[in-house]
């Protein structure tokens, strides 16, 4: 062990990696799953996650309690306006409901997703020169949808209010009534062209996660499996450096993870129209750096897991918090501060952030230097911890 060079160590590592990959490629079901798993993840997360742009046909109940004012009925014109807008956008399916209690009942039964109530003094208030109040009834059991409905309705009401205001200020002979009513024209512009979809957001995260998980969880599973079956003894009685076992296994798992990462990339670009703005080489370099930052952690976990079952369980335990806390699926900024603090110690956060910046925003190395430094430091520290731990484990 002591007098064996780096060349022998590497050559043994390559033999072990080759062996692992041969086994992988002969396992047909495993190969299919290798492709299907990331596909499922993309499709599921990409299509399920709601966003304002994709919401339509929400079932909304309309209660008109307006009692009118001197035969004038402001609510009628309001409803006509609402329907006119909705006929263009199809965001809502409006149905007439007799009372707020009925809305509650229908929401509870799941027939409605929200409601609009026009109070009895609606016309009266407006005629008296006051604000007309509109009430949005939301379904608290589904915060995501209720927030969406609120957003949609507020936009609609705001637009209608602006139109009414424009009519009112028309007598002032202004050249641009809109400028009078709404002095600010707010426009949103991204820093790269095109309109990014949710896939653009999740594809880099899923790639980073898959590749890193392959070493962090694939390594303990692969090694504990060999220990359990007994084949590990076959390698251990050979006069090889113990490090070549872990290095070979890491190479094998990294190759597997990269294959999956590339599959995700191809799917994202081919099926989901994700555009890569930055350098593709930088994307791969980042994936490899992600692997490097996780190798040490993977080896530490390996050293403490005795059998495959424990390794699998540990994998699930670690994977879920990582998935949800590292900003892979949901933006970190959405989380409460203590959760954000946790996410800041997970290397996956930095890897997916860097990858996203490169892929979506076209960033180069200078822009992601903080992420790079964190990943390198994390990797070096973990490997420094892992190697002695692993050596001790191997010579029990």
């Amino acid at each position, binding site marked *: *062990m*002591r007098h*064996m060079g780096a060349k*022998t160590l590497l050559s*043994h590592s390559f*033999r072990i990696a080759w*062996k692992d990959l*041969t*086994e992988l490629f*002969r*396992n047909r079901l495993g190969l299919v799953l290798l492709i299907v798993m990331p596909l499922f993840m993309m499709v599921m997360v990409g299509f399920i996650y709601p966003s304002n742009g994709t919401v339509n046909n929400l079932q909304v109940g309309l209660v008109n309690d307006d009692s009118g004012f001197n035969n004038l009925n402001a609510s009628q014109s309001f409803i006509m306006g609402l329907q006119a807008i909705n006929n263009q956008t199809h965001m809502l399916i409006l149905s007439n409901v007799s009372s707020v209690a009925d809305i509650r009942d229908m929401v509870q039964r799941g027939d409605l997703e929200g409601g609009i109530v026009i109070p009895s003094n609606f016309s009266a208030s407006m005629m008296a020169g006051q604000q007309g109040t509109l009430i949005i009834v939301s379904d608290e059991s589904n915060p995501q949808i209720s927030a969406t409905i609120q957003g949609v309705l507020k936009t609609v009401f705001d637009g209608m209010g602006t139109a009414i205001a424009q009519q009112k200020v028309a007598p002032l002979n202004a050249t641009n009534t809109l400028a009078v009513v709404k002095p600010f024209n707010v426009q949103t512009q991204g820093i790269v062209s095109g309109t990014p979809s949710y896939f653009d957001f999740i594809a880099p995260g899923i790639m980073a996660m898959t590749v890193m998980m392959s070493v962090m969880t694939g390594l303990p599973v692969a090694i504990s499996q060999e220990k359990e*079956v*007994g*084949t590990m*003894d*076959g*390698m*251990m*009685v*050979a*006069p*090889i450096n113990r490090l070549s076992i872990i290095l070979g296994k890491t190479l094998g798992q990294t190759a597997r993870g990269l294959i999956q990462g590339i599959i995700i990339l191809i799917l994202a670009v081919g099926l989901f129209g994700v555009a890569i703005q930055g350098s593709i080489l930088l994307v791969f370099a980042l994936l490899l750096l992600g692997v490097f930052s996780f190798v040490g952690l993977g080896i530490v976990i390996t050293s403490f897991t005795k059998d495959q079952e424990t390794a699998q369980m540990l994998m699930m335990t670690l994977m879920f918090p990582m998935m949800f806390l590292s900003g892979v699926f949901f933006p970190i900024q959405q989380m409460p501060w203590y959760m954000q603090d946790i996410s800041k110690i997970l290397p996956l956060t930095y890897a997916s952030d860097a990858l996203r910046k490169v892929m979506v925003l076209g960033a180069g190395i200078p822009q992601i230097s903080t992420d790079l430094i964190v990943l390198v430091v994390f990797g070096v520290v973990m490997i420094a911890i892992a190697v002695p731990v692993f050596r001790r484990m191997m*010579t*029990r």
Partner: protein
Amino acid sequence: MANASIIEVKNLTKTFNKFTAVDDISFDVKKGEIFGLLGPNGAGKSTILRMLSTLARPTKGTATIGGYDIVKADTEVRTLIGIVSEKMIMYNRLTAKENLWFFGSLFNIPKDVLTKRVDELLELVQLTQWKNAQVGTFSTGMRQRMNVVRALLNMPQVLFLDEPTLGLDPQSSVEIREFIRKLNRENGATVVITTHMMVDADLLCDRIAIIDHGKIVALDTSANLKKMISGADTTIIKLDIPNLSSVLVEKLRALKCADAVTQENSTSLKILVHGDEAFDSVIDAIRVNGGKISSMENLQPSLEDVFLHITGHQVRDSADQKIPMAHRHFGEAPRRVR
């Protein structure tokens, strides 16, 4: 060189937490001999083997193989040894040839030498025609043969075999025993074998160490071990008693001259006795308690009797609890041998 020791074990001890699996044992194995470690499962045989083959580290004590310390010079030791584990060391998705190639390549054997050796070894165990088939499709016997030749890739001077016939049918067991003997004779390899099968130990081993509770309780040739109980004073009687009852068995156990009583089935007994009056005492005890003797035999002692005599319990007591792990995955599945 015939009497030179190739393995020297001194005060070897292994504890797991508070449990002492191997308790301060010392023995030598001579170059070229077949040395058996006999004992029930859990006696510590496999732990001894794992320590000698550098797979486990001794808690205390040392051992050398070919002069190399198993801890300080583990790499040198590894080049000298081969191990056939109770678990099959092979990858089911690799072919026979690929498996041997993989393990051989970890031994720094020059490529041309290894290529030749792999072919020779496959020929040796008659697997040449299946060399390109994945070992997952092999029968248990074929797999066990693969498992043995894998350990021979580095031409080991010392071959360790851990329960090599466990879970094999009688014919495969015979084949494996023949093969081990051939290796020993033709290659001059020293063989250390653990087993709880008396037959293996009796038929194969030049010397046998009987292990119980982590200690060597006896170490000698099979013939000498048997002499321990077939001496002037000790005898084994086999009795058939048609109306045998548990009360009667207890009465016989209580006899002063009876060292051990084992019930073979509902009507037959084996009693290990000592002393001049032994026969009379046994017969008297049976008749007084209403037993009828239909036959009585004076038996040649087997290793099993030796074990019983020394330890006071049977090897089988604990041995039967072991499940043969090695055949769990592909063991009895239908074969698709190409």
